[in-house]
């Protein structure tokens, strides 16, 4: 077990981060100029880190696959960002935010990391306001808050339904300021192809220029991955079309351990699937659950009539509606955490109470509009209602919205220690790309908090502790054999892909993988299904390598080739996710094994045998090896989660 050293600092929980910062090594200003850092991904974590490194005086290269850093998928986060400011005077504190996050994560996250997250949360809000982020305010001119799932306080700051956009544009503006100063060089339309490890340390990356197709190498004294999650392994998800897990997967294959790959968040409020040609799923922000009430018909006969379009939902009387979240969880009601809300929706639909295609439930604003008036609802959620109407052609002010759970976020990711360093020295992972803070279920409005915490307030410290003894390491030429070998193997892989010249498009194969993942590694899992899933994934992988068709060349923009590269990794990653789910013989958070549940159907943990982080090590030959990082809770009483 000694192989996994989480490097949690000594001392009381509330003093660990202070102690760490007091004692860590720093790099003096003159030496910072001599050190190169590569940042992959320009979402909240990546952009915030790259900008902050640049401000400190490091030489930074930042790359993203999009045409501009501003388009990273953090931009799509709608609802808000948590912080323990306690501005509403409703009893919030750093400890309570820490407690809610650990509990919400079903006791599968690392105490010290989560506490630090809660601790720096307040600075994030200060930072963003100073950048000119136009958070919502009340008439007194002070910041407004709303509530999110899994909390009894209002601690979520927001900018209409576009909080992620505003926070990312803040980070992007800080990044732009450094680009102009020359401390950061941007590489847009650039995809990471491999990480170069020399003498056991991460020393750079090999990338593909997505416009010219050129394969290029870049040296770095350290490499930071802020590359997001791997939800697109399911094909349909709320992720952007280009979101992918390849950077993390390359790191895994170079020796970085992968933490809890099976922990995937299924978001309860997404617009339901409408057809086979569907390319992605659209989220309706969790903030809607502040005012919307979720229900299905109380009687199957009514559900059938609604599905047959013989009855309209707005005509169904109150006593014939089942507000099942309020019924099952009176304390939290519609604001239970996401995993609980998703499972409850699936349970009702599986039992025959679903509407539309049978895979949808209602999110109704009738009472909120009666109580607050249409104008207030429009001010709060106008852009979301507009988005819903554009997609579905239905007016949610008049008829209830329809929603269903969809893949949204991956809690799993590269295993990192307290310093956010992976098991490869010099390789760091931040934001959704790491596994560290959300356990088995992330609370709403915590992804933005974590991305910015890692980027602005954690990495700028911890990376110095690593770089302090690297100041005498000269820049390694990219003519070095390690770089050249990596370039050669990438070129060979691209050629291999192009030469298959099979019959099936990348998307059609990706859809097959997505279906297998949803059926066997989705919302409800069991041992038999997971084994079937593993076999099925292998089958599709073989099919891919025999029969994929990629038109065009490698030396120009080739979107099919980009997708094929990403799918090749998803086809391996899906298998590791299933293995991890099979190994974890318990239900916790978003990971629900049908064999392990309470009599009421709630997730049943097995703390005796599974209170650990599953960190998987890649093996060139044979099965991946499981390492366990035991989770120790000294500052929080471990309980069965209860939202009743």
């Amino acid at each position, binding site marked *: 077990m000694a192989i996994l050293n989480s490097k949690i600092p000594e001392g009381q929980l509330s003093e660990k981060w202070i102690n760490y910062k007091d004692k860590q090594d720093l790099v003096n200003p003159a030496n910072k100029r001599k050190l190169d850092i590569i940042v992959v991904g320009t979402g909240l974590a990546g952009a915030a880190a790259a900008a*902050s490194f640049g*401000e400190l005086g490091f030489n930074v290269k930042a790359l993203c696959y*999009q*045409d*501009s850093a*501003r*388009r990273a*998928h953090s*931009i*799509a986060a709608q609802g808000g960002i948590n912080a323990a*400011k306690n501005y509403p005077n409703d009893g919030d504190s750093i400890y309570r935010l820490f407690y809610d996050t650990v509990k919400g994560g079903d006791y599968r996250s690392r105490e010290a990391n989560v506490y630090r997250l809660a601790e720096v949360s307040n*600075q994030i809000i*200060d*930072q*963003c*306001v*100073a*950048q*000119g*982020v*136009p958070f*919502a*305010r009340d008439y007194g*001119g*002070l*910041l407004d808050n709303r509530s999110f799932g899994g909390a009894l306080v209002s601690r979520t700051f927001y900018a*209409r339904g*576009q909080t*992620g*956009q*505003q926070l990312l*544009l803040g980070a992007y*503006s*800080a990044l*732009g300021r450094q680009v102009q100063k020359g401390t950061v060089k941007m590489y*847009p339309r650039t995809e990471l192809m491999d990480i170069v490890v020399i003498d056991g340390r991460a020393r750079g990356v090999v990338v593909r220029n997505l*416009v010219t197709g050129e394969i290029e190498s870049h040296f770095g004294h350290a490499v930071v991955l802020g590359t997001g999650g791997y939800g697109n392994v399911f094909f349909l998800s709320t992720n*952007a*079309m*280009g979101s992918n897990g390849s950077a993390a997967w390359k790191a895994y294959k170079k020796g970085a351990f992968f933490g809890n790959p099976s922990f995937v968040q299924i978001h309860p409020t997404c617009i339901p699937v409408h*057809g086979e*040609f569907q*390319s992605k799923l*659209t*989220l309706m922000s969790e903030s809607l659950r502040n005012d919307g009430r979720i229900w299905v018909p109380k009687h199957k006969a009514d559900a059938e009539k609604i599905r047959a*379009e013989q009855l309209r939902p707005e005509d169904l009387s109150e006593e014939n509606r089942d507000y099942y979240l309020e019924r099952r969880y009176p304390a939290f009601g519609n604001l239970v955490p996401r995993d609980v809300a998703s499972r409850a929706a699936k349970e009702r639909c599986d039992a025959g109470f679903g509407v539309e*295609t049978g895979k949808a439930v209602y999110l109704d604003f009738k009472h909120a509009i009666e109580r607050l008036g249409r104008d207030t609802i429009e001010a709060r959620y106008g852009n979301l209602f*507009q*988005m819903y109407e*554009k*997609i579905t*052609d239905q007016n949610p002010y008049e008829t209830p919205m329809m929603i269903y759970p969809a893949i949204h976020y991956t809690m799993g990711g590269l295993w990192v220690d307290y310093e956010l360093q992976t098991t490869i020295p010099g390789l760091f992972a931040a934001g959704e790309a790491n596994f560290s803070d959300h356990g088995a279920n992330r609370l709403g409005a915590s992804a933005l908090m974590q991305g910015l915490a890692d980027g*602005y*307030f954690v990495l700028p410290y911890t990376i110095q502790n690593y770089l302090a003894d690297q100041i005498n390491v000269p820049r390694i030429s990219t003519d070095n054999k390690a770089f050249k070998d990596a370039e050669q193997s990438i070129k060979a892989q691209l050629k291999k892909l192009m030469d298959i010249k099979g019959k099936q*498009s990348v*998307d059609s194969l990706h859809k097959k993988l997505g279906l297998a993942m949803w059926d066997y590694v989705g919302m409800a899992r069991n041992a038999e299904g997971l084994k079937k899933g593993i076999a099925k994934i292998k089958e599709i992988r073989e099919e891919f390598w025999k029969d994929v*068709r990629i*038109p*065009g060349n490698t030396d120009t*923009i080739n979107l099919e080739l980009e997708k094929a590269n990403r799918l090749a990794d998803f086809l391996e990653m899906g298998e590791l996710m299933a293995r991890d789910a099979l190994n974890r013989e318990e239900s916790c958070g978003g990971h629900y094994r049908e064999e392990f549940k309470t009599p009421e159907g709630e997730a049943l943990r097995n703390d005796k045998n599974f209170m650990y982080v599953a960190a998987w090590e890649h093996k060139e030959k044979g099965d991946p090896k499981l390492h366990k990082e035991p989770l120790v809770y000294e500052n929080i009483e471990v309980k069965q989660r209860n939202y009743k």
Partner: protein
Amino acid sequence: MSESKKGLNLTLKVWRQDSAKAKGRFESYDVPNISPDSSFLEMMDVLNEQLINKGKAPVAFDHDCREGICGMCSLYINGRAHGPDDDITTCQLHMRKFEDGETITIEPWRSNGFPVIKDLIVDRTAFDQILEAGGFVSISTGGIPDANAIPIPKEDADEAMDAASCIGCGACVATCKNSSAMLFVSAKVSQLALLPQGKVEASRRARAMVAKMDELGFGNCTNTGACEVECPKGISVSHIARLNREFLCASLKQ
């Protein structure tokens, strides 16, 4: 909806261009039986699947989030940026806005500031360069006063938010007969000028961003207001007035 809607049979006239230097041309494709409930880009996916199956090169176009916020999609459809609907991006446009049998013309953004690099994909790095010139508040991470230290009137914060909703897609430039980037520039200048945090360097910012915009070959604003009409986020031309005010103040101070 569960009632079976009749599929649309469409003809697409699509701009094809192999590279930045190559000469472009229109090509026509028939796409049968498109569901009116599918999005425009899903229709493009169907076209590409069809082309791939025939062994032809699929049409390259930019897209990413497909929910109207990343600003990556950028099609000029039947002579309108983001197509025939208001307040949306191309990815939010749905096929129910089209008629069976219709011919749809699909082009890239056309502007000197945004050169075409392949088919429907243009290079918009000019927008990044404009923002790098001054679209920020000059503060570094840390050492910041409490977020509530300076109250900001709600009206100002709301108006700043209106301006800040710009997604940087470039529809304003594509629509403007002068290829002006004034709506884009003014949205950022206005957002930051409205907030006390950004007010400090408002003049310098306006000057720097306008100078960069001119340098990169975008045209002048002649107040036709076409940009406002096509902006997917409904950003108002009143921000251009604020930009002009800031710019004038900056010029007078010089």
